[in-house]
């Protein structure tokens, strides 16, 4: 079935996307999920209408209370139900930038600290940046390379190659994720 820009099918997707940029959070489980609307590709041919999202697992649940120990499938189902209940819209509104907490980087011993800033606008995350990074042994650059804006922003143009996603062997610093989550907690306000 051919799908042209004017087909009802595409129209339906766009109606869904336009009013519904939102972030879903699941604070009770020490987790956070976010979804955002990517406007890429709505202009011109060859583009795509996508609904992007990210789900960030808080490694220790510290910013939202510890997760209960999982002991049964019933417990798992309960957590899934709670995760659903906490879906709320937050990315609407004008562009703004928030700064996450400063987090210690650990590698067996304290290794440094970092802080990220997140910019949102037009219903999506537009940038995630390492705002502060300091390691005790001068390996800041290596850690900086662990950042993941390219993965989060999903549609990356490299030369003439338009890609839907990137496959990589990422290692994401736990501190990076904690700082990112604290920034998004602020957006949730």
């Amino acid at each position, binding site marked *: *079935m051919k*799908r042209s820009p004017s087909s009802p*099918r595409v129209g339906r997707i766009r*109606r*869904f996307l336009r009013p*519904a940029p939102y972030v*879903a959070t*699941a604070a009770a*489980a020490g*987790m956070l*999920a976010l979804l955002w609307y*990517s406007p890429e590709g709505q202009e011109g041919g*060859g583009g*795509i*209408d*996508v*609904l*992007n*999202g*990210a*789900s960030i*697992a808080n*490694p*220790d649940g510290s910013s939202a209370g*510890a*997760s*209960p*120990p*999982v*002991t049964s*499938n019933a417990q*798992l189902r309960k*957590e*899934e*139900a709670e*995760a*659903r209940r906490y879906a709320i819209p937050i990315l609407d509104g004008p562009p703004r930038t928030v700064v996450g907490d400063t987090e210690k980087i650990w590698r067996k011993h304290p290794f440094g600290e970092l802080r990220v800033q997140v910019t949102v606008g037009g219903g999506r995350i537009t940038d995630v940046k390492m705002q502060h990074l300091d390691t005790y042994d001068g390996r800041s650059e290596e850690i900086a*390379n*662990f950042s*993941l804006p*390219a*993965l*989060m922003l*999903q549609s*990356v143009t*490299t030369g003439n*190659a*338009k*890609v*839907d*996603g*990137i*496959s*990589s*062997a*990422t*290692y*994401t610093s*736990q501190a990076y*994720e904690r700082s990112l989550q604290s920034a998004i907690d602020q957006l949730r306000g």
Partner: protein
Amino acid sequence: MGTVVSFAVFAGDVSPATARGAIEEACAILHAADATFSTWKPASAINRLRRGEAGLGELPDEVAEVLDLCLAAHRRTRGWFDAWALPGGVDPTGLVKGWAVARAAAAIERAGVAAAMVNGGGDIASFGEPEPGRAWTVGVQDPRDEAALACTVSLRGAIATSGTYARGDHILDPRTGEPASPVASVSVAGDDLVVCESYATAVAAGGGELLPALVAAGYAACIVEHGGDVRATANFPFAT
């Protein structure tokens, strides 16, 4: 699992509410997998097993399922993928992310969504087409430059990338316990993300001997060498 998961979803003929519900279900699956399998959380089921506090019968069924997959991956890769290699008990971390991402994608597909791609920190499961007649286009990150691509892939199904560049010590040769880094990164594409992930990890750890078996099983591999050269099995679906 300590990573970020992103979704690209084309609702197709299902309602917006159905598509949104499917994404939320996928997120719940990922969160539940993290709660069960995170080795960072002392109370996780996997840590209770590792500490000997609980047997498989007392833990969620998913734990036994994942350990079975680890065993299958160990056999498939002739020992190059080994969840039992490190001290501290079984650690399925190398496989859980792909397993959870595949489950999340399957939940979205069950909801009747036309096409979706779920990307868990570089491990990707997909179904359907972003546009009629066009497969998903996925870039393989250049191991030497985060902002560049080593190549692009026309993807139907799954792809996993494993490498030694993101964290120098994250792949160990199970036979020696030493870091292994014969290549910069290995990407494996095919139907099942868990199989892709096990082969990618195994080849990156030094299991280049597995390439013929991998191809025979319907999978394709692309290797980026430290010098930047890209080598691939003849069936690798490069995007043109």
